[in-house]
């Protein structure tokens, strides 16, 4: 008995101490980014290319844009890679970020059940479609998590003069979760939802959902990248972070982004200047 329990403790101790070695990855940066870039598989495609070239490991924390910006404002990341222009500009103006660069864009799509209870299928007018969904009281699954996609969705409701807060809990369902979780919810209850095209294309559990509305200019979805300000947070790895930014807005990074396709379709279109 003594030996077996002591043995077990020794094993635990050994595993606890074993950390020293595994954690010793010398050059790395932490990037706070969005669920859409991770769930779409983009990072799995481009980051190994960068790491091989630069020797810098990129550690991605994928959360909603709202939370990613909070992480940046606390100085807990070196680089921000997000998609909500007004929040990004505010972040830089507040002195938290150095400079915002264009990286790429894709677009949002409205997905919905094939039965199409609100009769919006094939529309190119997203605000009109939202009005019809509200009028039909067709179920709509909202991220409701302060992400870039959620902020975009709210601005569209506002444009259509629809008070979704009042409808919350009836046809308007606030999931308070990431893009994938919200799509799972929408698939399960045959609801409409606003999704970024990247996540939608790589999403597997579609059930009866299909793209209902696309192609409206309002659905443009640009991504920006920002170095967290080292003058505000001296521990920020400015050199390594800037190296990543320079790569991703440079020729090689832009090519890597364009090279990420699913079924022949590009998920993101590079647009760095």
């Amino acid at each position: 008995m003594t030996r077996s329990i002591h043995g077990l403790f020794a094993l635990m101790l050994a595993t606890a101490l074993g950390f020293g070695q595994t954690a010793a990855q010398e050059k790395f940066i932490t990037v706070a980014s969005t669920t859409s870039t991770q769930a779409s598989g983009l990072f799995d495609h481009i980051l190994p290319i960068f790491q091989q070239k630069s020797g810098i490991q990129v550690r991605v924390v994928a959360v909603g844009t709202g939370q990613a910006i909070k992480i940046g404002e606390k100085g807990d990341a070196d680089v921000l890679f997000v998609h909500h222009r007004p929040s990004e500009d505010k972040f830089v103006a507040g002195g938290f970020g150095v400079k915002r660069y264009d990286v790429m864009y894709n677009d949002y799509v409205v997905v919905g059940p094939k039965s199409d209870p609100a009769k919006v299928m094939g529309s190119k007018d997203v605000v009109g479609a939202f009005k019809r969904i509200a009028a039909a009281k067709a179920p709509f699954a909202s991220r409701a998590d302060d992400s870039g996609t959620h902020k975009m969705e709210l601005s569209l409701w506002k444009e259509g003069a629809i008070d979704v807060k009042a409808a919350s809990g009836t046809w308007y369902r606030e999931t308070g979760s990431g893009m994938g979780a919200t799509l799972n919810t929408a698939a399960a209850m045959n609801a409409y939802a606003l999704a970024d095209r990247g996540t939608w294309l790589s999403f597997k559990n579609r059930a009866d959902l299909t793209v209902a509305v696309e192609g409206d200019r309002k659905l443009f979805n640009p991504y920006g990248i920002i170095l967290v300000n080292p003058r505000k947070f001296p521990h920020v790895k400015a050199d390594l972070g800037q190296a990543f930014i320079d790569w991703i807005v440079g020729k090689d990074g832009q090519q890597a982004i364009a090279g990420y396709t699913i079924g022949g379709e590009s998920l993101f279109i590079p647009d760095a200047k």
Partner: protein
Amino acid sequence: MTDFGAAFAAAVSLIATLDAGLVEIVGLSLRVSLSAVFIATMISLPLGAAVALFRFPGRGAVVVVLNALMGLPPVVVGLIVYLMLSRAGPFGVLGLLFTPTAMIVAQVILITPIIASLARQVIEDLWEEYSEQLRSLGAGPRQAVGALLWDGRFSLFTAVLAGFGRASAEVGAVMIVGGNIDHVTRVMTTAIALEVSKGDLALALGLGIILIVLSVGITGAAFVLRESARRAHGA
């Protein structure tokens, strides 16, 4: 039912091919949770024994608080540890946020009350049963601690296993303080959450099956160890 079939197929193929990503994730899960269990055990056995054996003012309150903390919500623990370890927080200079160490800290906080509460109960019961005997041998609470811990080792081991179960199964805390970073802080539970968010329910469930099998394997191994020790000891 096709989902379950696909999940089993995914689980079997991941195990059969010894998928490198899977091995890494399982290894990290075990390292984080076993480290947390080890540290929490070192804290909570003496703590549980002290609360069981010594009478001091506010002891009742300590017992109630320990019992209540057994139900700590992981996501709240995660949030508190996050705020503590954030660069803007009191321990920010250590730069521990989004590392396995942060995950261990969160799990230690989660499971220490569980092990301590169960240990307190075990030792208190033993003390009630044997205190007269021990006192007649001239052993007060202080001298009896070692003997009681030793006598209750089998029950205490179960308490430690309960802590391990909680640590390896929770997702809320490690998601927040670890960040689910690939190759760095991704463990079984956060990997499952990620696959769910990708809509790959079969792979998610396949990973879930592996997690359950692992958990059964570990507790089974513990059971065998315990039984053989019990027999060897003639207890």
